[in-house]
């Protein structure tokens, strides 16, 4: 269990606020992230098995970090009338699996995500005196509005915006690879067809191909 998990949440907030006093918010990469030592699945893995996060390499997120990930996942993909929110479909566990993977691409993402989560809690503590996960929607949005688009992010928020862009990619990847995600965007494939008929008349009409 990580050190920060053992301390009381109120204490943790004080600690984070104190940290922001000495570590500039502009300094995005303030927390180092240890690199996992695990091996990958190799060049001849069992392709037929159903894998769960944690099956192949140890996961990373502390309970606090996991809460932050879940909160941010649901800010990016909340429940609506067509599909549930990302956190209810295991997307936080997937993101944990992703950043814990011992491959170079994922390890680069690991550093960006862990630094980003730390930044989120620091700015939340500074602005609202709470963890990001404990903010109400309006408060969360006020932070995300500052970092949701790299070209429009103000100086000092560029790194956080890059983290947000990465995190949105991961959340979307995790969400739209679930059956509920497929249904949401009406991906209708991966089923046996007796014959392939091509686009139906309404598609041809929509595209002025009829």
């Amino acid at each position: 269990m990580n050190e920060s998990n053992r301390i009381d949440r109120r204490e943790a907030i004080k600690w984070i606020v104190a940290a922001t006093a000495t570590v500039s918010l502009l300094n995005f990469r303030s927390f180092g992230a240890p690199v996992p030592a695990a091996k990958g699945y190799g060049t001849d893995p069992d392709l037929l098995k159903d894998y769960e996060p944690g099956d192949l390499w140890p996961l990373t997120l502390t309970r606090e970090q996991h809460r932050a990930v879940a909160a941010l996942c649901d800010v990016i993909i909340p429940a609506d009338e067509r599909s549930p929110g990302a956190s209810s479909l295991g997307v936080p566990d997937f993101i944990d699996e992703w950043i814990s993977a011992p491959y170079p691409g994922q390890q680069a993402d690991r550093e960006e995500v862990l630094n980003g989560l730390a930044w989120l809690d620091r700015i939340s503590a500074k602005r609202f005196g709470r963890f990001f996960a404990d903010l109400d929607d309006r408060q969360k949005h006020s932070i995300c509005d500052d970092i949701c688009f790299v070209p429009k992010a103000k100086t000092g928020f560029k790194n956080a915006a890059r983290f947000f862009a990465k995190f949105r990619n991961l959340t979307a990847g995790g969400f739209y690879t679930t059956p509920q995600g497929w249904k949401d965007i009406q991906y209708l494939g991966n089923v046996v067809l007796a014959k392939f008929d091509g686009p139906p008349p309404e598609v041809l009409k929509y595209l002025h191909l009829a």
Partner: protein
Amino acid sequence: MPFVVSSKTKPAYDVVIVGSGAAGGQSAYVLTAAGASVLMLEAGRNYDPVSETPMFNPPLQAPLRGAGTPDKPFGFYDATVNGGWTVPQEPYGVRNSRRGNGWYEATDSDIWSTGQNFIWWRPRMLGGRTNHWARFSFRMGPYDFKPRSRDGLGLDWPMTYEDLAPYYDKAEALIGVYGTNEGLENTPASSPGILLPPPKPRANELLAKKFCAKLGIPVIPSHVAVLSRQQDAGKIPAMLHPDNPAAARALADNMRTRLGCFWATSCGRGCSIKANYQSTTVHLPPALASGNLDIITDAMVREVTVDQNGKATGVLYIDKTTGKECHASARVVVLAASGCESARILFNSRSAQFPDGLANRSGKVGRYLMDTVGAGLGGQIPMLENCPPYNEDGASVMHMYMPWWLYREQQAGKLDFPRGYHIEFGGGRRMPEMGTFDDLENFTGGSYGKKFKEDVRRYYGSFMGFAGRGEMIPNEDSYCEIDPDRKDAWGIPVLRFHFQWSEHEIRQAAHMQKTFAQIIEAMGGKVLSPPARDPRQAIAPGGGIIHEVGTTCMGADPNISVLNQYCQAWDVKNLFVTDGGPFVSNADKNPTLTIMANAWRACDYLAGEMKRGNL
């Protein structure tokens, strides 16, 4: 017993074949049907697509939702076993612009970020690359066999299109290829009744066709080794083997086990219903049924052995399961280990009689290494936004493509590069995977929340990608040789690669990107990123398209070629190379179909020579 271990082989075979992919499979198919006893050696493990293919498994069940990693560069569910841009225990040497001058062991696992001058894809499994390839099956045309005669560049083949045409028919009929005959220039027609009907075009393919027409670019049904319906087992086997009822029966039996495509799951995973071509499901079963084929897997061939008269006597290989060196004796040796790998075996077969490597009196072994020119561009097409949904998985690969269309302009000197390219393209409502919605903020201005979900619904299926696949002209600066500093885990010297694109290829890549931008804009779309200012940045690195051919070139003159037109070594008459090595040009027609047709022709000749007592 067809699958054997090294201690259970026969004392001698008629033919030993090294490799089990398109070339090895085709060679074994032809030779066993002709009655030869054949031993096939495969460096990788046994592999059975029927029981091992993850059909329908959603990304949800895979680690990292199936995203590619250095262990599985084409994604977790890609069929490739023990392979990739690097192979465990089998290094190779490259130049690396990121690391300075000198030679380095290849380590890069991504073609678009590599600093390497060459990147070498190898699988280590029964069936080789035929398990995961795209299955695009285009014939080379009459011009493609005589390129030097047409424009003075490169080399001519010592055969014509007409020589190979009957074998294209046979190969297509055997493996099953969908497509049409459109009568376009240098895009040959198959004989009547050979091709299977193509699947209907997808919406984005129809849209591309409509707007490409305005640019004068033809969009026609692709030729793909996928069964759009079950093959006619009552007719095709008898047509392919009119005088050989046993071979016809074995083929018919296997054909009946192959089902027509059910229009789902990616061909790159392999196919458990055998609807696409894999050597493992198409070539090897009838060859095994003949009773004439033994296969040893995990057998890493080191060298071809020769007697004092300079005739091949068999091969030495390492049994990877025991680490022991073994010898397989045969009257004839067929190398079908892939371009480069077969050259490596020849280099490693050097002796006092053949000091520069076997069959290398010309000095051309390893020379004229070619890949395909590759460049791509993506676009977003507003017309496709919010398109009504339908299942457009189809054959997973493209149903339509654009063959090279500027022969006249090129002939008239209107283009700044020789030789052509075809366009492969796709898009639409594919199975979502990691990356499908990456960087959507470039269109949404950074939306999140409910707006993001609406944006995903709007933009899903509106992206299209275009990829050029063009001809590289062989040059003196692109070749492989033995790496003096590196050996594989079994002590066998490995290759290192020299590779250089010329201005021809670089200008062609620039033309590709310019054209793709025009197509995207003609469709009312927007390019995802503009064509590269420096086309050197646009072109895929050598080896990146996995079409490496050459290195054991055929020719009419023994002084400047390794093989004759029947893939027979000039210097060693009972030695043949039937893979991509014999190619002397690399037309914009993906090489696999030509490898099969050429191997079939070579093995017909080989079998005839054996019968005539010449081998």
